[in-house]
């Protein structure tokens, strides 16, 4: 038997990795992927909690999260394309016209 907290710990670790990716990566697409990683981490928590609680709601949530993730992916990638088109770069550090 695997203690539920292991799963949660794994979830936390993945979430942290996602945050770290956002903070450390320069490529916009990679950053976006980090966000996906964070969402995945949350999904793991949901499923783990669902298992702990013997309550399937958690699994249902995962579907919604996935739908949202898909929608975000569509829009997000479109935005990235738009940025690339106007800036010709995917370096997040160069997208800083608006500031102060």
């Amino acid at each position: 038997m695997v203690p539920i907290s292991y799963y949660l710990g794994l979830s936390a670790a993945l979430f942290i990795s996602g945050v770290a990716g956002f903070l450390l990566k320069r490529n916009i697409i990679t950053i976006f992927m980090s966000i996906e990683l964070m969402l995945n981490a949350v999904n793991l928590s949901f499923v783990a909690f669902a298992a702990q609680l013997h309550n399937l709601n958690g699994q249902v949530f995962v579907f919604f999260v996935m739908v949202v993730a898909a929608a975000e992916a569509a829009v997000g990638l479109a935005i990235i394309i738009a940025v690339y088109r106007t800036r010709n770069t995917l370096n997040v550090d160069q997208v800083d016209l608006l500031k102060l």
Partner: protein
Amino acid sequence: MELLLFWVFAAICIGGALNLLAQKHPINSALSLVVVMASLAVEYLLLGAEFVAAVQVIIYAGAIMVLFIFVIMLLNAGEEPHGGKTSMVAKLVGIPALAILAVMLVWSLGTQAGGSVAVAGAEPGPPQVIARLLFNDFLLPFEVTSVLVLIAIMGAVVLAAPLKPHHAEQILEHLKSGGQN
């Protein structure tokens, strides 16, 4: 046995995540992410969520990641670009914050969450139960996601549709002149 599986796939999972961070090329990162997702699917199975596991593979790894890779290819994104001002703040504020956040989250999830000994994989999530939930209790969110998807489609269309050529030139000129807006 389950514990072993958990550890193996947890290790793969973490490894994939770290690899995502370590890789310079977005394609490699994307593939790492696929690895993470796949191993997560296994974890789901361990937790008795077969349906979720299946969907995870189909939607995430199958659809979303394909989209990512498609875009990476489309934009011909290469090695992680350099240049531009790197943010000191991201390092000076972000990394310590990240460390603390890690400690806090792991601590609170690892120790605070319910009982640490839990029944794992005890109750399988039969698709019909999930279906009942989805179309009764969660009918409204389910229906509302249609609006979400519609928005996403509209958004993708309006943002990614090609510009008329003269617009692109205008933008480039505008950029060259260093102006804003």
